[in-house]
């Protein structure tokens, strides 16, 4: 008999980086790299598991902004151009390294990797990656989760109910379009929760959500099952806690698997060693040294020092060992746990999907190993949170504490260190939009003012994304984030002002519709 359950949850999200106004745009590479390094390898893993008859069930979230980009014709075309360029870069590297026995095989490997990605994107996915994930949901191996429309960090909006409502309503509507079904669960951006949010989730028909460990541990009443039993809010919406031990094993700088010496080193990118002039030719839009995605070294030593060449076979073997280790430790975790409730425990392990393949190159192989080993053991059952609730519906009643999985466990990442750049303006704009929605929601959909009001909502929702404060706070891409946020707000301001003046310029409106091209079915009434 199984000791309990484990739930693997993947959340796929990227900020909206589509820029049709430029022939090439550097940050669009974030999407192309995620497709090639994460989403396509995950598809390859899921296909292999299905072909081998391995039973599995994962919960999976695709953020609406990511779906908008994955479904976009222009970005699909640009992805193919990007991948073709990567193949060309790898071929140049093959020529450059033809006398280097250490690195030449790796360059060949990268060329084959990108050739495989191009082939999978065209033939397996027919360029529509999101549709493939829907096929898995239809096959019953993925349980879809709904999210917020533009990945807004909801605790910052708790004082503005229309924004929370609209983010969740549009997120749920988009999830229905993508998955063809009403998701039972919600992925809260950054696991950001505040008491009261469960009511908005219930109003969208969502039955459960995931919070950071201390969200449950510091709930309104002490949780008898700790992080290993969901709790139910008084309105019946359940909260599952992220298991800290799983997180530690994958994310920790000291103990985490991805920092193993034999794994590929993410930071040692060949782009830093290539002449800037050549790099500019290879990577349009790159200013100065930039990563190109070809990485020839292994981590070697977490503390620094000279790097050794990457050896893929050794890394693959280590990923298999780590998968074994992960499952063994989860079983041990449940064996030493004191039974506290009459329901079996569940270990909840949510991850950013982009961890697998991009940050952690061997991640997809590790994930596949974990799933195969879980299928082979009778001690632990792989199930989604929704499956668990179906089987074990009697839960302790308590409301999780305000929390997130960001640094410090609360909101600092999205509020300090410059992260609140323009946020008061965004909040003021939300008030303006609520008034606009009230005034223009009943107009015929194709009337110019109705189009402008809906587009104002789209631009503002894009400005509300958690990504811009995050990119500023972490210093990952602060100038890009500031400009993007400012541009979305500027478009909103133009439309709001023009609507009030009764002077919407159709040419400008059309341009904004092309620039901020999300949520074509947006219903303005969600803002009222």
């Amino acid at each position, binding site marked *: 008999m199984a000791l309990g359950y484990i739930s693997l949850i993947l959340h796929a999200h990227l900020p909206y980086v589509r820029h049709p*106004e430029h022939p090439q745009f550097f940050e669009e*590479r*974030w999407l192309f*790299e995620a497709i090639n390094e994460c989403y396509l390898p995950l598809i390859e893993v899921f296909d292999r598991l299905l072909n081998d008859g391995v039973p599995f069930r994962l919960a999976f979230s695709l953020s609406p902004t990511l779906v908008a980009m994955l479904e976009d014709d222009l970005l699909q075309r640009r992805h193919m151009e990007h991948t073709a360029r990567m193949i060309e870069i790898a071929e140049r590297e093959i020529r450059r390294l033809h006398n280097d026995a250490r690195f030449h095989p790796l360059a060949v490997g990268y060329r084959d990797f990108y050739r495989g990605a191009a082939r999978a994107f065209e033939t397996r996915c027919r360029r529509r990656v999101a549709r493939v994930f829907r096929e898995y949901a239809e096959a019953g191996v993925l349980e879809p989760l709904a999210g917020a429309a533009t990945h807004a960090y909801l605790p910052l909006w708790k004082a503005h109910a229309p924004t929370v409502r609209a983010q969740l309503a549009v997120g749920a509507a988009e999830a229905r379009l993508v998955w063809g079904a*009403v998701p039972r669960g919600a992925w809260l951006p950054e696991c950001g929760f505040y008491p009261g949010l469960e009511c908005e989730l219930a109003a969208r*028909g969502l*039955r459960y959500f995931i919070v950071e*460990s*201390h969200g449950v*541990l*510091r*709930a309104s*009443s*002490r949780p008898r099952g*700790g*992080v290993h039993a969901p709790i139910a809010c*008084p*309105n*019946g919406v*359940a909260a599952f806690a992220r298991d*800290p031990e799983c997180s*530690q094993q994958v*994310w*920790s*700088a000291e103990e*985490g698997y991805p920092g193993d010496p034999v794994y590929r080193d993410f*930071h*040692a990118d060949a782009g830093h060693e290539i002449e800037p002039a050549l790099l500019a030719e290879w990577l349009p839009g790159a200013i100065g040294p*930039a*990563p190109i995605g070809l990485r020839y070294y292994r981590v070697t030593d977490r503390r620094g020092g000279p790097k050794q060449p990457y050896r893929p076979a050794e890394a693959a073997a280590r990923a298999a060992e780590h998968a074994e280790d992960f499952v063994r430790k989860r079983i041990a975790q449940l064996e030493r746990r004191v*039974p*506290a409730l*009459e329901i079996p425990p569940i270990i909840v392990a949510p991850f950013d999907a*982009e961890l697998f393949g991009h940050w952690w190159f061997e991640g997809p192989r590790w994930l596949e190993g974990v799933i195969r080993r879980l299928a082979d053991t009778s001690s632990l059952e792989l199930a989604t949170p929704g499956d668990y609730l179906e089987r074990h*519906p*009697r839960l*302790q*009643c*308590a409301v999780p504490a305000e929390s997130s*999985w*960001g*640094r*410090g*466990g609360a909101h600092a*990442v999205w*509020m*300090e260190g410059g992260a*609140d750049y323009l946020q008061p303006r965004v909040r*003021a704009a939300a008030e303006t939009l609520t008034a606009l929605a009230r005034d223009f929601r009943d107009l015929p959909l194709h009337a110019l003012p109705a189009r402008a009001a809906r587009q104002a909502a789209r631009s503002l929702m894009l400005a509300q994304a958690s*990504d811009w404060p*995050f990119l500023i706070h972490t210093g990952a*891409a602060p100038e890009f984030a500031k400009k993007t946020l*400012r*541009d979305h707000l*500027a*478009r909103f301001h133009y439309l709001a*002002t023009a609507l009030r003046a009764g002077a919407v310029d159709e040419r*400008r409106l059309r*341009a904004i519709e092309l*620039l901020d091209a999300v949520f074509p079915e947006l219903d303005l009434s969600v803002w009222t």
Partner: protein
Amino acid sequence: MISDQLAGEFDAATAAEETVEFEVGALDPYRLRARWNAPADRLAAAQAALGGGTPPAPLALRFHHGGNGAPPYDVFLPAAAGERTFAFRRGGATYRVEFGLLRPDGAIHPLAGDITVATPPAAPSPRDDLLILDLGRRSVFDAAFVAVPKPCFVEYPAPPGAGVGIAPASLVCVPLAHGSGAPDFAAPPGSVAPWP
């Protein structure tokens, strides 16, 4: 290009909006962050309403602790616009914060509405009651499930040993140092993360 023209709309729109701004938010269980902006004309008008005076009434934030009976205390603000983080010893507390000019009689002449903010709890709840909710009695696919306006409890006696199931010490959780999106492996100096 239209996209460039539209970018210019931001300055035009925001230039016309010189209003008093005042926000307070919880960063974590122990810290609040306040941000304020009192435009010069609003500030001058408020000073005049207090009868002018030399020196003029200072700008201040007044913090009222909720629940612990502590007297309110004031923080003088050095500029008409700024932001500041305030640290507290107690997590999971509620504060009411006023923003305005400190009058000679000790009251605050408000420049904006006061704000009440609660910091997240820093420790497990003192409540240890056990109430069981049976979700199986309602289906999420039943529209009535989401329409229920009030809590609907189903109580069961606690199972034997439930009260000692988990020691308070094991409820203490230190969040990991990382934020979302990226492992916290140190990047080499000068390297730029290519995506969030």
